[in-house]
């Protein structure tokens, strides 16, 4: 399905979705409250079948956080990007680890590095960071570590 056809289809599924222009892939912005419903439709709709989550990450914009999901359909070979704005003080979003199993580890990584709380995640704890890093989010822009970091 081409990007334009995808746009029409996605707007039917979720009227509140809006799109960023420019860029190689279709960029869709969704509200974090709609994300679980939207993700389920993307995965299970027979015309979409986005069955491959090939990137899950987060961006710290200082004013807010943005979750970024890259999806591809191995059947139709169409690709899209979904972005969702999160509140920086209490970032939380529904987990999609039961839709795409690969998200389980990726969400744990985003959890430890950005502090995003994934609701209904089966095992939300630190992935790579050693014990004692709970509550410190090293990939946030305002992260300071007076012991290990040498400032320029």
């Amino acid at each position, binding site marked *: 399905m081409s990007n334009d056809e995808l746009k029409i289809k996605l707007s039917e599924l979720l009227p509140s979705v809006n799109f960023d222009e420019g860029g190689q892939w279709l960029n869709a912005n969704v509200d974090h409250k709609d994300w679980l419903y939207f993700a389920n439709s993307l995965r299970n709709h027979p015309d979409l079948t986005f069955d491959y989550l090939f990137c899950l990450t987060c961006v710290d914009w200082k004013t807010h956080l943005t979750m970024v999901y890259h999806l591809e359909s191995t059947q139709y070979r169409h690709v899209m990007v979904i972005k969702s704005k999160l509140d920086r003080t209490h970032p939380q979003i529904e987990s999609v680890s039961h839709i795409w199993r690969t998200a389980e580890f990726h969400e744990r990584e985003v959890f430890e590095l950005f502090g995003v709380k994934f609701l209904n995640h089966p095992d939300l704890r630190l992935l790579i960071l*050693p014990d004692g890093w709970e509550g410190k989010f*090293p990939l946030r822009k305002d*992260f300071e570590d007076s012991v*290990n*970091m*040498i*400032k*320029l």
Partner: protein
Amino acid sequence: MDVKPAIENNPFPGEVHPTPSGGILVTAIDDVINWARSNSLWPLVFGTSCCAIEMMSTASAKYDWSRFGFEVARATPRQADVIIIAGTIVNKMAPVLKRLYDQMADPKYVIAMGACATSGGPFFYNTYSVVKGADHVIPVDVYIAGCPPRPEALLHALITLQKKIKMGLTREQIREGKT
């Protein structure tokens, strides 16, 4: 401590006095031991980032460190003589590196390959996770500059290590008083 520059360039540390039935070798046993050890140094398979790719290249056919006595890389520290720290050491890796070094049998030698292992390199500033130089964890005999160093640089470091062993100047030899 005596520095023995004469040993550095001689292929074998000693003098042969010819006699009708063959010859008599005059040498010091420590020098012979160091000579033997320096020519059979087996490295440990240890690489934490891109330097490891250069290390693999040095081991393979084009550069072939076997020519200098680094015959095979061993996958267990108990059979290795030298550990080449090929890559970044992060805080989480540091105890693992220490344990590997402790498990290696004496005599053992350490080469810090590249900027990360030497000083933290590109991760010196503004990082929370990188050890700023592997010598914070274990003693290092030879440092190599570069990011990553070319295979020639690693070969040069390996030969430098051999010279150091022959002269009795590695950290371990100095610590044990085997100069």
